[in-house]
């Protein structure tokens, strides 16, 4: 099963978002977009060119952007707010909490440049706490797709879902290895069935998890690889079903260990099926400037780190 996950080209997840928006612009007249002075970074040029009346430039004023989006949603529109993940979450947490989440507004918070893979801009912009902040908000759906294809499909899927959504994606060019097309919010994808270890990954880390699973399989370890693109609501059934077979679980994500997907899964397993776990995540640290792959290696998020975490559990 794993062999089909390979790639011929690299593309950024943010390009998947931009191309998804272009298609939404053509298909769904209710969709509107707002951006806080980052049109090029969020790949919105085509959407704006084709739908100038449905795009609102808010300038460098993210709090106002969240409030305007809430007002547009109140009056029946489906607004997509577009800026970096750092400015989409921590900077505007109270606006999201009161005007969007508590008020149950159909706003899609679309957040690019998340995590270490933002690269050279450094820790000021490399948010690693956003999943935690957003998953804590009642009623908020949190999605972190793995590649271009999945991000494009997720962008389109959230437009037809009613309720607030946080969609997280990134800056770097990254292997495109997931099939095009369908995206089911909240539904895990079992990419490889196995019996020795459950390996769960989200976002950019999924490609490293695929590499790790291939190597482990070659050395005789049977890996169940699960793509969790929707961190909340979590597909609890898929995870429980898998760990009941394997009894050990590794979670890989480009986020703080505190508050991330691994913590959500640990909570689930502690309540329902206590299981030995390892987390491949950033351990209570800020990032720094560097190239994406260098940073992932330095902060313990490489393919090798995933392999070692799996070996630790099955030794």
């Amino acid at each position, binding site marked *: 099963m794993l062999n089909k996950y390979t790639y011929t080209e690299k593309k950024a997840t943010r390009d998947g978002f931009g191309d998804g928006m272009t298609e939404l612009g053509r298909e769904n007249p209710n969709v*509107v977009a707002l951006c806080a002075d980052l049109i090029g970074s969020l790949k919105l040029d085509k959407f704006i060119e084709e739908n100038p*009346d*449905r795009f*609102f430039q*808010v*300038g460098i*004023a993210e*709090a*106002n*952007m*969240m*409030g*305007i*989006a*809430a*007002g*547009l*949603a*109140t*009056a*029946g*529109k489906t*607004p997509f707010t577009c800026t970096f993940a750092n400015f989409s979450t921590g900077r505007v947490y*109270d*606006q999201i*909490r*009161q*005007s969007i989440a*508590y*008020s*149950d*507004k159909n706003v899609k918070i679309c957040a690019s440049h998340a995590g270490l893979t933002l690269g050279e801009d450094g820790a000021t912009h490399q948010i690693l706490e956003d999943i935690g902040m957003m998953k804590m908000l009642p009623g908020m759906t949190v999605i972190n797709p793995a590649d271009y294809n999945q991000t494009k499909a997720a962008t389109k899927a959230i437009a037809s879902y009613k309720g607030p959504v946080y969609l997280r994606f990134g800056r770097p060019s990254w292997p495109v290895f997931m099939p095009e097309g369908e995206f089911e919010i909240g539904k895990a994808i079992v990419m490889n069935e196995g019996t020795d270890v459950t390996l769960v990954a989200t976002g950019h880390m999924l490609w490293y998890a695929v590499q790790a699973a291939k190597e482990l399989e070659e050395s005789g370890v049977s890996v169940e690889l699960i793509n969790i693109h929707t961190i909340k609501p979590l597909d609890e059934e898929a995870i429980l079903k898998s760990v009941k077979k394997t009894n050990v679980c590794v979670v890989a994500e480009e986020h703080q260990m505190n508050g991330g997907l691994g913590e959500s899964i640990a909570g689930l397993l502690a309540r329902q099926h206590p299981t030995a776990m390892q987390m491949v995540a950033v351990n209570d640290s800020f990032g720094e400037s560097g190239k994406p792959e260098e940073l992932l290696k330095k902060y313990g998020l490489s393919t090798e780190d995933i392999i070692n975490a799996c070996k630790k559990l099955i030794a």
Partner: protein
Amino acid sequence: MSIDIEKLKAISSQVRRDIIRQVASANSGHPGGSLGCADFFTAMYFHILKHDPNFNMDGRNEDMFFLSNGHISPVWYSTLSRSGYFPIDELATFRKINSRLQGHPATHEGLPGIRIASGSLGQGLSAAIGAALAKKLNKDDRNVFVLMGDGELQEGQVWEAMMFAAHHTIDNLIAIVDWNGQQIDGPNDSVMSLGDLPAKWKSFDWKVSEIDGHDFGNIINTVEKCIDNCGNGYPQVILMKTEMGKGVDFMEGTHHWHGKAPNAEQTINALSQLKETLGDY
């Protein structure tokens, strides 16, 4: 429509009684700003707004009203219930458990008339701008109104929104500032001066009017003039002078009753100054 000032005065007297009784019964809440805005809310809901008490969240083809300074919820709840949005008896549940009348307005419990939660300050103008943009996209020629406190203008988001509204010519929006000069910790001028407020709005390219928020003729004529002015390519603000605690002598003109409930004796005193005109709930 001619203005029936006697009718409006009678309603606002009952609204003020409702405010005192809600806050006294909950033994908490914000009577000062609520009393100060009672005449404004009465003018809006009983004369100015084209609105449907059979509440529709999206406000299609009707005027939409947003309250940014959500702590004055008692005056809004009273006017909403008295204009038919929900049963008047429900005012008795204000701030109590299992109520739709939360301490600060919320949509979560489905109270008709409320379109967005407010309470954490400085967010209402942005939401109103969003609704105004949607009305333009929908070719809906009704307008959007938002009331803000003066103290909350200290929040930076308000100035982001002011800039946006002028840049994007949001000319189907009328903002009103409750300019009572008071906030929790004292007068604005001692906490954080707003300076020359009309000049600040003007310099952000808004058209500014100033009114007496206790003169029904002045409120209605000015708001209606602003409505006639909609569609002219600029946003409009009305700076409304009010007196915190208006109508209850010992609460008037001081910040001490911003967020404090009267005790039993004070409640009797307050209610003795406010005529029961429409029947208490």
